[in-house]
């Protein structure tokens, strides 16, 4: 029968999502280029009006300089589907050339609903699949995490699809449905190439599981099966482009991995951007040297957590490695957007399912980290006119987080009727107290910076003072978190893999 707990959780999540939808989207009222919203609309226009072999190519009808497609084919197919619906609802939404920059309440409602539908079809089922039949903290946090809501339903993107597929793949792989997991992850990767941030842990975990198989034959056959499913998925997704010819296929690759772009755009809470304040990288090194530096740093720093997973392939290590690897990629790789922090936040939330709920991670590190991820995106969100929903959704999140036990235990037995535990509670150790204290101070600092950013105009000499400070503040914290999360991952030592919850 209907699971009332999940129905309630998802309807509350929908209330939050729809509420944020009412606010402006990126580039609203800002011709000629507008923003991500217009980009998505434009892709609908391109995919339904032009043949497939022109989607990624610069042609007379498809000006790549005006929001050319730069995501893998699954995004293109999705745009095609949404575009078909859009065309039937109101053909002016996707009129070739004519519909550029179209802005109307009806169109906005349509676009916003398309994101909600995507969440309903992919993200919510993914949450349910991951968390099982009884509501857990993981499910609650995934459903109300403000970062994802603000970017998808405010700024306007479809991260719910790629992250939903990612969650499904993690759930499947943990449950030893490796083929399903691999397929789901490949699909996620083919929706947004940024999912590469998660690729290494998947590779090493699956490899590790293969190597732990009892016999050589088993090892090889497992490897083979996974390999086939990965290749099969890629072929299935890319087939139309293979058929259109090598040039078209290569063009897609060129669009997805634009190696000629700079180290970063705008201000990002990234290591290089922060270093740049003191040591001007772009002036002292050329592009290929910078590229090499990024790759080297990223791969080197990802090695520890991934080798750990290879040696001890347990769900706990896998999820922690996902968190650590994606954070390393965020901090040290090339051309990072502030929105990519979502790729780190989601594994962090998933980690609640493999770590003890009374651990320092869930009580201190995680909420601290998640709030800072939202904070790091404040300059972007303010630019979109989303400051109020940011504050509202984040405060709501904090209150819910603070009362997590009450929320989640309501679905359990009457034993939970007692409000306080009968066991004596140990007083917090010095380090825990220090941690709590630092958390509070740090968050006050974040609030202060947000306030200053809003209220106090920067001096003329440093027009980007506040965004830069916000990014530097965030990236320093992220470096601290990187250290802490690595310590947590390695502190488990060798643990046996435990079976996951029932579906």
């Amino acid at each position: 029968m209907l699971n009332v707990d999940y129905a309630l959780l998802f309807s509350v999540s929908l209330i939050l999502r729809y509420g944020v939808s009412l606010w402006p989207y990126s580039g609203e009222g800002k011709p000629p280029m507008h923003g991500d919203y217009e980009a998505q609309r434009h892709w609908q226009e391109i995919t339904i009006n032009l043949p497939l072999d022109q989607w990624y190519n610069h042609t007379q009808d498809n000006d790549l300089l005006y929001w050319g497609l730069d995501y893998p084919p699954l995004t293109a197919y999705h745009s095609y589907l949404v575009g078909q619906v859009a065309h039937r609802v109101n053909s002016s939404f996707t009129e070739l050339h004519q519909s550029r920059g179209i802005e109307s309440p009806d169109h906005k409602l349509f676009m916003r609903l398309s994101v909600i539908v995507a969440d309903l079809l992919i993200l919510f089922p993914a949450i349910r699949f991951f968390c099982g039949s009884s509501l857990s903290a993981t499910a609650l946090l995934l459903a109300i995490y403000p970062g994802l809501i603000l970017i998808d339903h405010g700024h306007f993107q479809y991260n719910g699809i790629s992250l939903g597929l990612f969650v499904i793949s993690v759930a499947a792989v943990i449950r030893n449905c490796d083929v399903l997991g691999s397929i789901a992850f490949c699909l996620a990767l083919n929706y947004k190439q940024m999912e590469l941030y998660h690729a290494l842990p998947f590779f090493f975990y699956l490899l590790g599981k293969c190597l732990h198989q009892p016999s050589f034959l088993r090892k090889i056959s497992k490897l083979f099966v996974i390999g086939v499913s990965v290749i099969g998925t890629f072929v299935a997704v890319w087939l139309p482009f293979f058929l259109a010819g090598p040039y078209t296929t290569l063009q897609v690759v060129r669009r997805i991995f634009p190696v000629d772009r700079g180290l970063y755009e705008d201000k990002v809470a990234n290591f290089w951007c922060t270093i740049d304040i003191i040591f001007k990288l772009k002036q002292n090194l050329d592009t290929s040297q910078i590229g090499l530096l990024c790759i080297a740093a990223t791969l080197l720093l990802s090695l520890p957590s991934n080798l750990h997973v290879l040696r001890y392939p347990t769900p706990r290590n896998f999820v922690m490695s996902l968190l650590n690897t994606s954070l390393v990629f965020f901090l040290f790789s090339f051309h990072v957007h502030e929105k990519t922090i979502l790729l780190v936040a989601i594994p962090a939330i998933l980690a609640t399912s493999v770590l003890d709920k009374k651990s320092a991670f869930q009580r201190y590190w995680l909420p601290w980290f998640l709030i800072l991820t939202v904070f790091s995106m404040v300059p972007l969100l303010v630019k979109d006119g989303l400051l109020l929903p940011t504050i509202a959704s984040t405060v709501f999140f904090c209150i819910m987080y603070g009362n997590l036990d009450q929320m989640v235990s309501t679905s359990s037995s009457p034993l939970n009727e007692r409000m306080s535990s009968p066991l004596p509670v140990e007083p917090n150790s010095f380090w825990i107290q220090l941690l709590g204290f630092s958390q509070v101070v740090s968050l006050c600092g974040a609030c202060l910076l947000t306030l200053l950013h809003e209220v106090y105009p920067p001096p003329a000499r440093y027009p980007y003072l506040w965004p830069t400070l916000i990014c530097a503040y965030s990236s320093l914290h992220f470096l601290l978190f990187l250290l802490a999360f690595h310590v947590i991952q390695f502190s488990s030592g060798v643990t046996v893999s435990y079976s996951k919850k029932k579906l």
Partner: protein
Amino acid sequence: MLIAGFLALACVKLLYLPSYKSTDFEVHRNWLAITSSLGVQSWYHEATSQWTLDYPPFFAWFEFALSKVAVHFDPEMLVIKNLGYSSDKTILFQRLSVIVTDFVFAVGAWTCMKNMHNLKSVQARGPSRDAAIYTLLLTNAGLFMVDHIHFQYNGFLFGFLLLSIGAMMQEQYLLGSLWFCVLLNLKHIYMYIAPAYFIFLLRAYCFNNSAFSITRLVKLGSLVILTFVVSFGPFVNQIPQVISRLFPFKRGLCHAYWAPNFWAVYNLVDKALTIIGKKFGGDMIKIPTATDLNGTQASMTGGLVQDIEHIVLPSVPPLATFIITFLFMVPCLIKLWRRPNSVNFMRSLTLCGWSSFLFGWHVHEKAVLIMILPMTLLAVISRKEAKYFLLLAITGHFSLFPLLYPHQELYTKMFLHIAWAFLAVKMLKKVHKCDLLTLAEKIYLLASVIIFIYSEFIHFYLPPNLAKYEFLPLLAYSAYSALGVISTYVSPDRKR
């Protein structure tokens, strides 16, 4: 938990700031302007805008106090001539004022929750009951829709009602009466539940241990009179004008959007009989066409306010509605007299509200809240009351849907309604430890989905000759909801 719950809800309300706002927004902006720009002697005479001041004096003072803060947001909203002024800062201020004043409601809900512990006749106990009362009151979807989207201050007003009930639970009769008198002077529609107060106070307070106490009567009387004197004092020279503003009887039997009450069904039956009569009786019966009625384009159900003339069934004058309303209140008032405890008081209060909703003159569909909110307190007392509460509340909130008519709000109201319905079912199930609704009742509630899909979607795609019956969606909502509201009304009576 008081602050955390209030703050969490405030965040959600803040997200819905850019929603549709009804003419009530302009009404209140106008009142801010009137009370801040003019002297007290002109408040009830000012008529530049059609939205004249028609709430009692305390509310006018409330608007006056708000205007002192408003001036820091956007002084232009306080200019009377700026009809329809709604700058971003104005919207921010007005919406924030509703969110902030909801704190009174939170305190009221908290008080009732705490004071319930003292009631001996209450079955269910434990933290789940407390959580249910506080949460279901605070998150009430109907209140959210009417206050924070449509725009009104009902949360603020109901806060006083809850404070009053809370005081009565503690047997602090004078305090309870004070809160109620303040409430009456804020919005006089609460007069409808005054009979319950009258009987309860007379029996429980004035008859101290079965002996009539003159001192208590005098104390109570002076308190009431004092409150009214403080309220109407500054307007002592303009009492007739104030009264005429407060009680405008030119309005019709039914409000624009039919509240799902008895008269809506009455009108429906009348219309049906007329159509049947015309078919069989030929030209004997003349049906007023749309243009007959004062030359306006609207029909009875089109959505405008006007006097309704009934054709087949007898016309209903205002006095008749009062008498009928009062008659239906009598049974619960008698029961209250016989056993004057707090629980019966709450029951009478709810039932008085119910009678006035079903049989009153020019009832707004928003008045459904006057039944739903007090009944939230009763829902934790017994399983039967929990069941009636679920049926009433879910149907009642559904009947508010036509209020939020723009396309954008379709999803708002849907999500709010569904979420609250699930929350209510879950929390009450936890309190009473059993499934509360029968299969038939669940089917009835699910039937609302059909009405919803029809009214919001299918109706627009009908062929032109059917689409002219633009009243059909409203009619469907009203009829369906009336069925729910009336049948649940009849049921509690049966157990007497």
